[in-house]
Every structure is written in C-alpha cells, then in structure tokens.
C-alpha cells in the first residue's frame, strides 16, 4: 500500500443518509476478477439515466464544476450493507482519497482503510458546514494531516478526527496488514498447538 500522509483536494457532497454499498457499486458489477474499471461504475444507478450510459445531468458527480474532487462529503452512516471491498475500490477508481461523514459502517471502514481511502468522522455541525461549502463553491478545498488527525477547512478551522493508532501507523508507513500477520507465524503455531481444530473440511 502507498503511504498516505497528507490529502489535499476539492470536495463534493452527496448529502444522503445511509448510502449503502449497493448504491456505491451495484452488484451486477461484482462479476469482475480484478479491481480495474470499477471507478466508472461508482454510483452507477444515480450517475446514469435509465439507459445505463447517458450521464444524469442532475447528479452532482456529473457536474463539470466538481470534476477532480477527491474528498467526498456524505450523509450519516456511509457504506452500510454488504462487505464488498469493491465499494472502496470503486471510490478510489473514481478519484476519491477520503470520505467525510458522521458515521461509517464497520466493514466499509475496515475495507477503506486497507486500501488507503481515509474515512473521516466529523460531527453534524461540521458535516452541515461542508455540505454548504461544497454547494456554494465547487472550488472549495480541504486538507488532511493524517498524523495529526486533523482536517483543515478553507476558513482555517481545524477539526480533529478519530483514527485508531494501528490504522494510522499503516497509512503513514504504507504498511499492509498482511505483512504484519505473516510475521506472527510462531504465535499462530503456538495457538494451534494449544487448540485442536474444530472441524476439518478436507476430511
């Protein structure tokens, strides 16, 4: 994984609560065997008209003023629903580096962090402020300091956000968790020696 230390980018808002992973990437796009090309399908059913290919002019991500936005401001409880990691893959493919909401579904949050997509939790007041800023001025840009766990708004206001120490360490150093787990092989062996397996699927 690449190191993620700072994020700087323009914002775009989808002020909808409970955006589920079926909206982020509909199931019919899950027949892939790699991670490529999912960006084009992000929010597909909102982004295109009924024919599936004509861009819906009313959908914010099709507004040229917001092209290139890399920070998504979303309604409460973002990423609920399925465990598909295709959701963060699609968001990253669509150019996003961070998502800001008041709450994230657990599995989405885990999946996002493993791919270097930063879930930033803010309070409702900040969320509202960001919705307005994005609406009023598409060139609004925010910056994020991962180490300091700090989001800086255009007016200079700084907001702290929670991030567990381990995820932060992985982001800052580009460490992927698999490497960490592979290093624990001796401990896993000890565990297995003490705890007989429960079932054997190959039996």
């Amino acid at each position, binding site marked *: 994984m690449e190191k993620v230390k700072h994020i700087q980018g323009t914002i775009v808002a989808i002020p909808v609560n409970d955006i589920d992973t079926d909206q982020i990437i509909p*199931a019919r796009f899950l*027949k892939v*065997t790699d991670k490529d090309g999912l960006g084009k399908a992000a929010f597909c059913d909102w982004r295109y008209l*009924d024919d599936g290919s004509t861009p819906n002019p009313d959908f914010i991500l099709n507004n040229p003023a917001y092209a290139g936005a890399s920070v998504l401001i979303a309604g409460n*409880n973002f990423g609920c629903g399925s465990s598909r990691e*295709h959701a963060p893959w699609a968001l990253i493919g669509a150019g996003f580096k961070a998502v800001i909401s008041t709450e994230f*579904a657990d599995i989405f949050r885990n999946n996002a962090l493993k791919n270097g997509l930063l879930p930033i939790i803010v309070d409702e007041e900040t969320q509202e402020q960001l919705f307005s800023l994005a609406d009023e001025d598409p060139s609004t840009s925010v910056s994020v300091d991962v180490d300091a766990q700090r989001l800086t708004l255009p007016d200079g206001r700084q907001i702290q956000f929670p991030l567990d120490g381990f995820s932060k360490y992985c982001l800052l150093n580009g460490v992927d968790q*698999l490497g960490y787990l592979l290093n624990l092989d001796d401990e896993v062996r000890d565990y297995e020696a003490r705890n007989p397996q429960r*079932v054997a*699927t190959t039996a």
Partner: protein
Amino acid sequence: MTNNGRPRTLFEKVWDAHTVRDQSEDSPAVLYIDLHLVHEVTSPQAFSMLRERGLRVRRPDLTIGTMDHSTPTTPRNELGIIPVADAMAAKQLDTFTQNCGDFGIPMYALGDEHQGIVHVIGPEKGLTQPGMTIVCGDSHTSTHGAFGALAFGIGTSEVGHVLATQTLLQNKPKTMAVNVEGKLEEGVTAKDIILAIIARIGIGGGTGHVFEYRGEAIRGLSMEGRMTVCNMSIEGGARAGMIAPDDTTFEYISGRKYAPSSADWDAALADWGRLPTDDGAAYDQEITLRAEELIPMITYGTNPGMGMPITAAVPAPDEERDYNKKIALDKALAYMDLQPGQQLLGKPIDVVFIGSCTNSRISDLRQAAKFIEGRQVAESVRMMVVPGSQQVKRQAESEGLDAVFRAAGAEWREAGCSMCIAMNGDQLEPGQYAVSTSNRNFEGRQGKGGRTFLASPLTAAASAVAGVVSDPRAML
C-alpha cells in the same frame, strides 16, 4: 465459566478463546479463525494477491468454498448441467474453480449435490458449531451466530489475510443484549422479530456492536428461525449476532456430516454447555421487545430499517422531526412511488421471491408450501421459490413441496442467491413491486428500478395468492 471470577458474556468467551494476541494500545487483537467460507464473488482478488506474493493457503482444511452469488438458478439441461449464459459470471466461476483447485480448498461447484448459499451449507453440513470463529467475504456471515459462534463478514483484503495466515486483526466490538420476551402469536415469525428489531434501532443502531439475542421468544425458535434472526444482524449495523447454544442447537447439529461423533460429541457438549453468558455479565447496551406485541412486519422504504407492522400506514416525511431522516424518507417514498399515509395492505404486486440466506431453508419452504397448498398464485404475480441449497432442494422434493408450488403456479428453481442480489439473471424489471423474503431493499438491490417489500415467507405466500400485499393471519 468465569475468567478470574469475572462473569463474561457469550461473545467475550468466544473472543477470549481465540485471541492469538490481545488487543493493545498500539494494535488490534489478532483473532484465530476456525472456519473460513469462500465464494466466487469476493475471493478472486484475494487469491491473486496470494499468487503475487508467492503465498499458500495456510489451512485449506479450515476452508470451504461454494458457488452461490453469480450462479443462475435456471433448470438443468438434458445433461443435468445448469448452463451459465453470462460470460463474465462464467469466467468468475471458472476462476474460482481454478483457485480452489490450485490452493487445495474443497469446493462445491454449481450443480454439485452439496452446493448452495454459503450461509445455508455451513450449518446444514454441521460445519457451523458453537464457540467457533467463522468468517466469509459476505456480510450475512452473521447467520452462523445462531449456533453461538462468533461469525462476521469481512472484505476481500481480509479474505486474503485469513487464507494466508488463518488470523485477522480485529478491534474488540461492544456488546448489545437484544431481549425478546414472551411468546409469538400465530402467523408471526422469526423474520418479523428481526424486522421489528431493525425498525426499532435503525440500520446504524448496532454499529460497533455484537448482538446477543436472548429471551423466551428467541429460545422458542427453531435453529432455522434463529438463523433468520442472526442473518439480519448486519441490517441493524452489527457485524455479528449470537444466540447461546442449548438443546435445540445440539439436536440440530447431531448427526450432520461434520458434527463431532461418539466420544468427541460428549466432550463437545461439555464445552458448548459452558458458553452461555454468565449470570451478572454486563452488556454495553440492552433493548427489550415483547413478542406478543409483534404482528407481521413489512418494509416500505429503501433500507431495512424502514419497516412497520403490516397493518400500519406509510409514515409521512412532514411528521419526521429529524431533517436528515425527513430527506431520506422523501427520497425513499419517491423511489418506491408510495404516498405518506398510504396502507401497504392491498397494494398490487408483480413478483414474490421466496429464497435467500434469510429464508430459503426447509422450514421456510414448508411454511410457504403449507399456506399455498390448494390455493393459486394470482394471475398477475410471478412467484419464484429458490431453495438455499441442493440439499434443501432434494429434501423439499422428497416431501412433495416442489409439486405444491408448481401446482399453484410458482417457479421452482435451482439453489443460489438468485433475486436477492440480481447479479445472476434473476431480477426485477424497473418499476416492479416485489414481496421478498430476502434481507435488503436498497434501491436497485433486486434489479435496477425494482421495488422491494421485505417480509416473512408467510406474508410473501399470502401476498402471492392475493396478488396484493396481504396479512397472512387473516388467511391462515
């Protein structure tokens, strides 16, 4: 079973027994995984990662694969084969076969006598047992918690972690006791219990928590009913839901293919008997519902939290005080093309889907068949009945349930996820209304533009016969 005398919950006991390394200031706990279920949709990129790094699957003997999500449920051809028309799905299934073969993972391929939805086959094979940790790249892995296992969905990166190391990094979740006291009335089922719970707490209500379902009404459910309840824990935001094992659990497991046998069985029973939550153990949160107050439930909106008693009226956005909720409700009603204050009872429907890992087990099919027997599916309704596994399908056929459904005008299909996820050819047309026994009513979940009312198999069957949303209690 106490830890230094401190009473513990069921969840804590299973968690404590599986920590290879405890959680610390600097890192999450490292949890050992007893059983890893894999399927074709969320695994290919994980296997690719193993290949890129030259890693093997550490414990193929704790891993099992099945094809379910992208498989068609259309009838077999004259050679007994279920043809896969979609080229991308075919490639994904081939990739899965190749991956399981290369890495030595036992796998049930499409059409195999053991194949089925991943959360149906684990329990029916006896692989799902109390006290285990079970994961799968699928959020409805919570189903297996019905046996007192700690079971939860993971993403594809984590699928790779478990394949390579049999462990996962996890922060310890909080616990919520969900008590359902009293007895259910006739015509009210496990599905109604869980829809009522989710309507009460909302779809984010359990975020960061593991549920433990308790109380007389839960104890009174069959294992299949308990699986229905645990299945939808994730719809309440909880990654896992658990029920303490008891005689109902042990009876269900006994004699199944992977169940412990003879001497091992007695030892297992002794272990399992120590799992239930100790008296005095504390939960971080607790809620209580009364079973007698429940009636059949149905959803009206575009997330599973937008549910109500079937006799109620669709709520009005204007009466919603929370601005965000008002907007969400407005949007949902527009998508569903419903009016505030409207009754759903009597609303014409186009499709009835009985299936999915929530409600595709033999007792679900028996219940629906018993209701349908001697009745006809309304002319205007397409009714699909999709067994959860080949084993369920055979059992149902041996009891003549397929004949009952067919005689009533319903389709009897091969096993799979089918219209629950609409990535396998089974889907709603834009604008259609369906009463579905599945678990998600998100926009487009059952097909682009399709509109889903989630309900129990009984409510689904009653609605199929009447051609409109119907309360099964009036027709029992």
